[in-house]
């Protein structure tokens, strides 16, 4: 997923003002995946949401000292979101691979039987591969449930409006935040 272009960036302008625009754009991209990503079958949306979370996390890691305190506090939950979506994606990647490999063995064994083999050459591998498939399916379900819970928790705690407010603040030299822009 390509990041959306952020308009109005000025290399000679203050870091805080430029970073604010970028954070707001990345936050909007992240939140834009809901409610689509509430559907566990939306694997592409879940994958893209993970990338959006990663982009938001990285810009916050770099620029949070410019903003109000919640900009730093938001990094942890965004990282958690990225990680849990990463685990969902790992399962989505591995499941078809394991199933395709099992199919390959079954096809090869059927061909061997048809050619007169006395036993299935890969029979021993079947159990392990089926167990691995079940494990991946279970892990995927659990991690997806964690993702939903995490997102709902973020919503309950006002993640988006709090981060929007925080990036409108500017951290002063004394470490206290002030509202920098109207």
């Amino acid at each position: 997923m390509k990041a959306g272009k952020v308009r109005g960036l000025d290399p000679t302008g203050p870091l805080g003002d430029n970073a604010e625009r970028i954070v707001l754009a990345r936050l909007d991209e992240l939140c834009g995946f809901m409610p689509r990503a509430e559907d566990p079958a939306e694997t592409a949306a879940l994958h893209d949401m993970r990338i959006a979370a990663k982009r938001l996390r990285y810009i916050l890691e770099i620029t949070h000292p410019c903003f109000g305190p919640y900009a730093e506090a938001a990094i942890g939950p965004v990282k958690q979101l990225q990680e849990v979506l990463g685990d969902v994606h790992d399962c989505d990647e591995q499941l078809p691979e394991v199933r395709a490999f099992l199919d390959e063995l079954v096809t090869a064994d059927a061909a061997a039987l048809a050619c007169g083999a006395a036993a299935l050459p890969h029979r021993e591998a079947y159990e392990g591969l089926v167990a691995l498939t079940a494990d991946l399916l279970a892990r995927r379900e659990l991690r997806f449930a964690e993702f939903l819970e995490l997102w709902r928790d973020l919503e309950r705690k006002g993640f988006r409006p709090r981060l929007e407010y925080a990036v409108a603040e500017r951290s002063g030299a004394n470490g206290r935040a002030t509202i920098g822009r109207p």
Partner: protein
Amino acid sequence: MAKAAEIAVAAEEPFAVAGARIVRARTQELFEHDDGVLDTVDIERVHDMRVATRRLRAVLEVFAPCFPKQAYKPALRDVKALADALGERRDPDVHLEAMRAFGGVEPLVERLRERQAAGNVALAAALEAAEASDLRGRLLALADAAEERVGA
């Protein structure tokens, strides 16, 4: 996992000046991780270097307007190529790790080991290409150009 260094920034400093400093730091971090990255026993090295490429790529994209386009585009492309090669190596590493607990999946493990070995060959080529094209020097030159742009 290797933690990225905290880099001091100030809200009022010019965007390009901050970008130059951060790109220099992330470039240094990336090339600090290339030692032993082809070792398939210690898979964390590939992971750390991959994370370093992601961080570098992220800052390049964030500060893109600060860099001369002609130099920026090929540098970003080469960082992505390195990240892709690290990903090709890392993916089988992750899958192999996940399969450790399972008996009876040796044929799949064997297949993944072949992919891991192929990923290592591709990664070795990508590292050589980065060195031959002086990727590090080009990234540092981008940082210099960003500073020059604001007369810093």
